């Protein structure tokens, strides 16, 4: 197997991108852990992150996160199989329900993050 095998076909390339999404996501979560830790600094010492560099970093991570979500949920949906009354549920329906769960979770989390800021 030549080292650059994954550059030879676009499917291979996008597979590697899919695996790579872990790295930016992991870095962002480590930052998030720091954000939690900074609450220890007390009311006067607490300065939340707001540099432009951080926002740009988050935008890039968000692109990877969306790619992870779309690929993971569609692939997971395609392999799950349930039977109802001896008939398999069409996999499009399972994928759709995964995306619905994603949307619902996003709305709930977004609501909590914004509502409790007041």
């Amino acid at each position, binding site marked *: 197997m030549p*080292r650059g095998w*994954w550059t030879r076909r676009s499917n291979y390339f996008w597979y590697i991108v899919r695996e790579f999404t872990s790295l930016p996501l992991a870095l962002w979560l480590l930052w998030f852990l720091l954000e939690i830790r900074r609450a220890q600094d007390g009311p006067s010492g607490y300065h939340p992150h707001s540099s432009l560099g951080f*926002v740009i970093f*988050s935008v890039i991570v968000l692109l990877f996160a969306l790619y992870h979500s779309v690929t993971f949920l569609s692939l997971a949906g395609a392999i799950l199989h349930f039977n109802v009354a001896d008939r398999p549920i069409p996999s499009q329906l399972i994928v759709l329900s995964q995306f619905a769960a994603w949307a619902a979770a996003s709305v709930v989390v977004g609501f909590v993050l914004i509502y409790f800021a007041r």
Partner: protein
Amino acid sequence: MNAELPLSHTVGEGQGEGRHRHKPAIAHLFWWFMFAQGGVLAAILLPVHILIQGILGPLGIVPVVDRHYDTWANVLGNPLVKLYLLVLIAFPFFHFAHRLRYLLVDLGVPAARGVPAQIVFYGGAVAVTLGTIYILLTTVPISFG
């Protein structure tokens, strides 16, 4: 009688079958399970956190809990929030550890397949989990208010 002997070589264990011992790989099963769970959680929870806490909040477009000490500390004290944050941070790291290990294999580092690499990567995820528990327990005391 003798004529049957050669025939006996054509049944049963063939070449290749005995090349490696087949033992059920329970460890692989467990790490794959964690990988799958972490992948689902990362997929449905991370984008909204990144969007709101990483982009909209810092830009001041919407108010967000972590922008002010009072609201952030208030939320962090809630035990349910602590539990949620543990799940949100720890589980995806098992997903990341698994994927990054396989990514290394794909990029031509066969050593990433071995047990030492497994210890490093999955051990790393365990370390992040323990670190998260420590931070969550020590940063803001649990309050039910």
